[in-house]
């Protein structure tokens, strides 16, 4: 009797508890490891000595199909009748604004949003209007943005003290003293937004080059953002986390390695106003800024050649010789062009630009350093939830090394987006970026998957079971690092100087901060200089 009672009640119960609690063998998450410039470095070295026999001529060649290259090409197409082509190493244009897709949705691999652009950026507003992101202007001249492109509500949430709060500025369970400091900081930033230098220009604006030259502000480039906070008696841990998060978000660097000028620019550079939304909004699309890259590319189809690795740019009898490898065909080609725009980062230029020092080839590339990034796209069974504010576009975990994740399906009009994809952003800041890069290249997909899940599990303990696929993209040289002294230093200024009025430079690393607007204006400015001989 007792035995059977035990068998009936005790064992099955104990057994089922056992089953429920013993951890199953961890689910392995399928996925791929991707990234640019794996093969490129290798091919570059191999090709360097080859002199192509096939030669063609062009008025202009643009190298690099990122935002700056595409924007240079667009400007050229609209404002000149020069015969030009654009050479891009990858199979797709877009550069850091690349996108990907699975069977259900598109998603970003890099840049994913554009904050409302400042109202004096006429060319950018015109581009947005051509592509119906701006549908018109109101009586006061303020742009009306298409609702589908403005980030839907809820926009941002922060997981802090066990709860998802609205917005990213910490407030849930944050002590009064910290809140005060955070407010003081935000007030200071609001002042900086409107601050003008003695030359009448905004202290912080976009493009960076239009900012005031007033030493009072430029001086801020000589200290770090972390030092600036301390100098201003802003010591709250919550505030420091937030500012650090912002530095990582925009620059891929920690506040302690970021120029205070750049750090403040993040908060003070943007002063947009719009007719139909409050100013702190962003424009975004399921595929992120790749949407913009596609629109930039559209009028250029005939001019774009992808899968072409430029390995040497040199001066040959008064022309610019651009030597490239057609990766698919494995053939070598030379274009002799009157002029050329290098819309490639300086670490690439260092290898391909073959110019004598006296002709302007003497450049200090060492000053340019880049923060590596890992970006992962996770295909999920169902949307991740949690206590507090529901799933938002941008979902950040307080205290995490990562920047959290963005829901790619957020801008879809579907009521219940199925097969959600989240894009997880992990900057890999380090005082020594080369070391961080080496470490990043050593990791396998499984390693990234574990690392990323560990971060996500802080807010979503059971997310592993929810992940169908996890692809990772490693950006070895993701973003230029605005380290102390870089933005207003000599090296950067020297690097953007054209060579003999024949070779021009456009890339966000010449701005010192990697954002869409800078890339867009880098391209325009280089093209303008080239055609109009403008400074």
């Amino acid at each position, binding site marked *: *009797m*007792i035995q059977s*009672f035990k068998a009936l*009640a*005790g064992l099955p*119960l*104990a057994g089922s*508890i*056992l089953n*429920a*609690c013993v951890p199953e063998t961890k689910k392995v998450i399928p996925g791929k490891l991707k990234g640019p410039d794996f093969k490129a470095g290798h091919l570059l070295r191999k090709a360097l000595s080859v002199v192509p026999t096939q030669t063609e001529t062009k008025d202009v060649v643009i190298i690099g199909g990122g935002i700056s290259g595409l924007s240079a090409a667009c400007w050229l197409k609209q404002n000149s009748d020069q015969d030009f082509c654009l050479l891009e190493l990858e199979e797709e244009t877009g550069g850091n604004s690349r996108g990907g897709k699975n069977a259900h949705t598109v998603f970003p691999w890099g840049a994913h949003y554009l904050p409302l652009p400042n109202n004096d950026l006429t060319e950018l507003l015109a581009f947005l209007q051509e592509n119906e992101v701006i549908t018109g202007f109101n009586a006061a001249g303020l742009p009306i943005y298409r*609702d*589908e492109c*403005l*980030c*839907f*509500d*809820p*926009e941002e949430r922060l997981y802090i003290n066990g709860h998802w709060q609205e917005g990213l500025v910490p407030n849930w369970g944050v002590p009064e003293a910290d809140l005060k400091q955070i407010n003081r900081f935000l007030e200071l930033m609001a002042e900086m937004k409107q601050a003008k230098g003695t030359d009448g220009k905004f202290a912080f604006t976009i493009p960076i080059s239009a900012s005031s030259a007033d030493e009072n502000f430029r001086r801020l480039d000589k200290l770090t953002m972390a030092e600036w906070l301390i100098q201003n008696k802003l010591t709250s841990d919550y505030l420091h986390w937030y500012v650090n998060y912002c530095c990582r978000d925009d620059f891929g660097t920690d506040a302690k390695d970021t120029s205070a000028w750049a750090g403040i620019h993040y908060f003070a550079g943007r002063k947009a106003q719009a007719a*139909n*939304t409050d100013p702190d*909004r962003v424009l975004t699309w399921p595929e992120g800024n790749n949407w913009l890259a596609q629109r930039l590319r559209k009028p250029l189809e005939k001019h774009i050649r992808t899968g072409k690795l430029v390995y040497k740019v040199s001066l040959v009898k008064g022309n610019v010789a651009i030597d490239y490898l057609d990766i698919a065909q494995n053939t070598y080609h030379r274009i002799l062009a009157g002029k050329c725009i290098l819309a490639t980062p300086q670490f690439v230029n260092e290898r391909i630009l073959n110019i004598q020092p006296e002709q302007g080839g003497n450049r200090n590339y060492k000053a340019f350093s880049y923060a590596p990034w890992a970006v992962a796209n996770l295909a999920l069974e169902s949307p991740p939830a949690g*206590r507090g504010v*529901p799933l938002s576009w941008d979902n950040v975990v307080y205290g995490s090394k990562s920047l959290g994740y963005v829901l790619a399906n957020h801008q879809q*009009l*579907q*009521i*219940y987006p*199925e097969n959600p994809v989240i894009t997880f952003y992990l900057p890999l800041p380090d005082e020594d970026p080369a070391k961080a890069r080496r470490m990043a290249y050593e990791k396998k997909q499984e390693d990234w998957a574990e690392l990323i899940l560990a971060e996500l599990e802080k807010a979503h303990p059971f997310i592993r079971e929810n992940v169908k696929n996890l692809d990772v993209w490693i950006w070895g040289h993701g973003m230029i690092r605005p380290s102390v002294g870089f933005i207003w230093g000599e090296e950067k200024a020297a690097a953007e100087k054209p060579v003999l009025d024949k070779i021009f430079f456009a890339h966000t690393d010449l701005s010192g901060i990697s954002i869409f607007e800078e890339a867009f204006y880098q391209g325009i400015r280089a093209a303008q200089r080239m055609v109009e001989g403008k400074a």
Partner: protein
Amino acid sequence: MRISIQALLLFSVFVVATCGLVYELVAGTLASYLLGDSVTQFSTIIGAYLFSMGIGSYLSKYFNRNLIAWFIQIEVLVAVVGGSSSTLLYLLFDRVESFRLVLYLLVALTGILVGLEIPLIMRILKDRFEFKDLVSQIFTFDYIGALLASVVFPLFLVPFLGILRTSYLFGLFNAVVALVLCFYFNREIRWATYLKGTCVMAILFLMAGMVYSDKILAFTESLNYPDKIVYTAQSPYQRIVLTKNSHDYRLFLNGNLQFSSADEYRYHEALVHPGLNGIEKPEKVLVLGGGDGLAVREVLRYPDVKKVVLVDLDKEMTHIFTHHASLLDLNRKSLLSPKVTVVNADAFQWIKTNTEQFDFVVVDFPDPGNYSVGKLYTNTFYNQLKRVVAPGGQVVIQATSPFVAPNSYWCVVNTLQAVGFRTLPYHAHVPSFGDWGFVMATLEPGFKLEKEFLPELKFLNKATFEQMCVFPKDMPGKQTEVNKLNNQVLVHYFEKEWGKYLN
């Protein structure tokens, strides 16, 4: 410091007694909550519980060896069964035919286990006390425990922890006592490792239960309805529950009442006829949402209507309203009419790609209680809506209660106006909902309303409708923001206003 064995065991008597009574109270409370009639529920449950304790006491004589180990084992079982009992009851309430049987089985099981414990402990302690002291001590602690439980249960536990968490918490107490005993009697008991293992697992399980009790509750609450459930289905989007009592059917989506068959005619007449009856020869009608076919039923009263397109996301919904006999009676087989095309699609996606125009459009979406549904009330959606209205056509939108949620209601009105619709707000009293609001909208300079209403209608006539267009002094129109994808103000208004109303 080693606590005396007696003190420890007496303390466990105290815990056992407290927990036992708490489980009993939990069962009683849940039974009266779920089944109603609290006097009957409480007295039968207390009876069953005490009787089961008797069975347990009787059975205790069959335990002859390893008494401490058995005691610990039973303690763990009590922890798990008692701790999870409320969750089980919640979960099984609308799943099993004879819920009562499950209820009493659980009560009996807990009772038997608790009933086993006291005699076992008396026997464990029998050589350590004088008999008179033993009896006096044990029963003292037993009754003190019972007193404590009966006082804290209504005063603190239910209001502050809720039923689910309370049972898990007391389960945890049981399990922790078991674990402490394991360590204390480490050398004396058999199967020590196994017992410790089960203790730890029980503790983990119960802690998980505590942590997730909110989630469990949210899920189980949605399963509980006052009436008999005659149909349930879980679609990818919502849980559909149909209940029945002596005079009506009720449909719940995710626990929210959609209609009661007793007064739905008021809602659907008010929704359809004012906008439709003024239109000269309405040939094509579009219904967005409304997979129950009740709005379509009203539309089909107009012989001029040649084609009705119904777009509802949820296949399950349109399935039950084309298959369930009593529901077919209710919607008069409207969805089976050859004039009607049912499209199961996301309304936002559908409307973006649709090129057809309709003379009359009924927009009958669920209330904007979350950001997903909120998208269907935005200016972006209404801009799309403009494209599907034929020249001379009219639209009607259900827009929650202007009495309970005035900002929400007028936000819908203002958003429609912002995209260029002319609006006519009106409201009707639907007993099971309260004062409910609708908005008629058109792109024409004026509304077409002049005609008489169909005589067969049960609720509406011209005079009634004229009254419905009047908003009394305590329900004036309101200035609100326009609802947009990037502000979703309507969801915020709605949460605030209904939240206040329900609390």
